[in-house]
C-alpha cells in the first residue's frame, strides 16, 4: 500500500513499513556512496565522529550529475547498494534508520537491519531525471574533493521508493522472483 513518511524517521515509524509498501519520502536525506563510506569507516576507526548525524538518518546511495543553473541537483537515481554492504552494519549499529539504493544486500546487512529496526528502500534505477524532480534542495556536507562522491544533505518531497527489506527481514527481491 502507498504510505507518506517524514524523514528522518524513528524506529516506530520504520516498524510500520512492510516489504512491498510503496512509500513517498519527504524531508532530509543524506547522500553517500562508495568513497564516502570508506572515509566514514576510516574516521570511525580513528575514533573520530561521523560527518553526519547518523541517529535515525537515511542515506541515499547516489552520485548526482552536476546541476544546471537554477536547479538544486542534476540527474539523481540510485546506485547499486551491494557495494556499500561492507561498511553498512557498523552504521546501522550507530543508528542509521534507512537506506535508499537498488539491488541486493548481504546477509550481514539484513541481520543488522533486523537487529536495529531499520529499513531498506529501492528507488527505480535509471530514472535519475524523474527522481531529480523530487529533490528540492541540495547542499555539500563534506569530502568535496571526491567530486560526484561527496556527501550531500538533500531535501526531498514525495520521493518515490519501494520497501524492499523491512525490519522483520522480509525481502521483496526474494519474494518477487
Amino acid at each position, binding site marked *: 500500500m502507498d504510505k507518506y513518511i517524514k524523514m528522518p524517521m524513528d524506529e516506530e515509524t520504520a516498524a510500520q513499513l512492510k516489504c512491498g509498501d510503496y512509500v513517498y519520502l519527504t524531508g532530509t536525506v543524506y547522500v553517500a556512496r562508495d568513497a564516502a563510506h570508506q572515509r566514514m569507516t576510516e574516521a570511525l576507526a580513528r575514533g573520530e565522529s561521523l560527518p553526519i548525524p547518523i541517529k535515525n538518518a537515511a542515506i541515499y546511495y547516489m552520485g548526482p550529475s552536476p546541476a544546471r543553473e537554477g536547479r538544486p541537483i542534476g*540527474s539523481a537515481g540510485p546506485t547499486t547498494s551491494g557495494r556499500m554492504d561492507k561498511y553498512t552494519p557498523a552504521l546501522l549499529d550507530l543508528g542509521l534508520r534507512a537506506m535508499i539504493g537498488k539491488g541486493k544486500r548481504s546477509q550481514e546487512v539484513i541481520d543488522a537491519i533486523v537487529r536495529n529496526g531499520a529499513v531498506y528502500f*529501492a528507488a527505480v534505477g*535509471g530514472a*535519475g*531525471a524523474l527522481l531529480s*524532480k523530487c529533490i528540492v534542495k541540495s547542499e555539500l556536507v563534506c569530502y568535496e574533493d571526491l*567530486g560526484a562522491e561527496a556527501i550531500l544533505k538533500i531535501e526531498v518531497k514525495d520521493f518515490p521508493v519501494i520497501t524492499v527489506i523491512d525490519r522483520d527481514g522480509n525481502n521483496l*527481491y526474494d519474494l*518477487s*522472483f
Partner: protein
Amino acid sequence: MIRTIDVSLITERICEMCIKANHVLSDDMKEALQEAAVSEQSALGKKILHQLLNNLTIAQEERIPICQDTGMAIVFLEIGQDVHFEGGSMEEAVQEGVREGYAKGYLRKSVVNDPILRENTKDNTPAVIHYSIVPGEKVKITFAPKGFGSENMSRIFMLKPSDGIEGIKEAILTAVSNAGPNACPPLVVGVGIGGDFEKAALMAKQALTRQTGAHSDLPHIHALEQELLQKINALSIGPGGLGGSNTALAVHIDTYPTHIAGLPVAVNICCHVNRHVVEWL
C-alpha cells in the same frame, strides 16, 4: 585517393555525441521500452516501465541526463584505410571531445585515474577507444557510454568445446540471474561467443550497440537469441528487479571463429539505458 580529416572535427563530433547520448535515448530503445510497458504482466512492473518512459521525456525536454551514471566513455572508431588525419593526435582529439562533452553537457565525471589509488580525473577521461581499420575513406564513430551498475554484472566464461550450446545457454542465464535487480532491468544482453578471451569480451560489448532487437544474420544464432530472450524473461526478475515478465528487451549475440580447444562466452549486461549513437565523417 587519400582523404584528409582534421582531428578537430573528431573532437567536435565526440563532444556532441556525449551530450546527445546521455539526454536522448535512441528510438530503437524507446520503442522496446514502450512495447514492454504494454506487454508487462506485473502491475508494479508496468508502473516502473511507465516511470522509465516518463523519465526519458523529462530527460529530453529538461536536459537532465537520463541516468546520473553518464558512464565511462566507450568509443568505437572504424577508420577507412584511405583516411589521413592531420592537426594533431587522433587519440588526444577523442579524449578532448569527451572532456568538452562531459563539461558542457553537465554530465557526471565518473572516472578515477588509477584502479587502486582511485583519484577522480574530474573530466571523465580517459575514454576507452576501440579502433578498427576498414576499406574506404570514411570514419564511423560509435559512442556508447556505459554505466557500471550493469558493467559490474558482466561475465566471461571460458567453456570447453564439450559444453556445447547447452553450456552457452547456462552461462548466459547464470550471468543474468546473478545480475538480478542490480543491473537495472529490463536489460539488453550482449554476448560474444568464440575468438579468444578479449575478442569474446569485445564482441559482447559491441553487440550492445546493435539496433535493439535486430537479429544475427546466422540462422542458428538468431534462433539462440530468440530462445535466450524467452528463457531470460521466464526468470521473472522483471522491471527494477521487482518481478515481472520483462527482464530483458533483447539478446544480441556475435560470434567469431575460435580455437579447437576452446569456447569463450562473454556476457556484457546493459541496463535499460542502453545508450549508443553513431556518426559518420
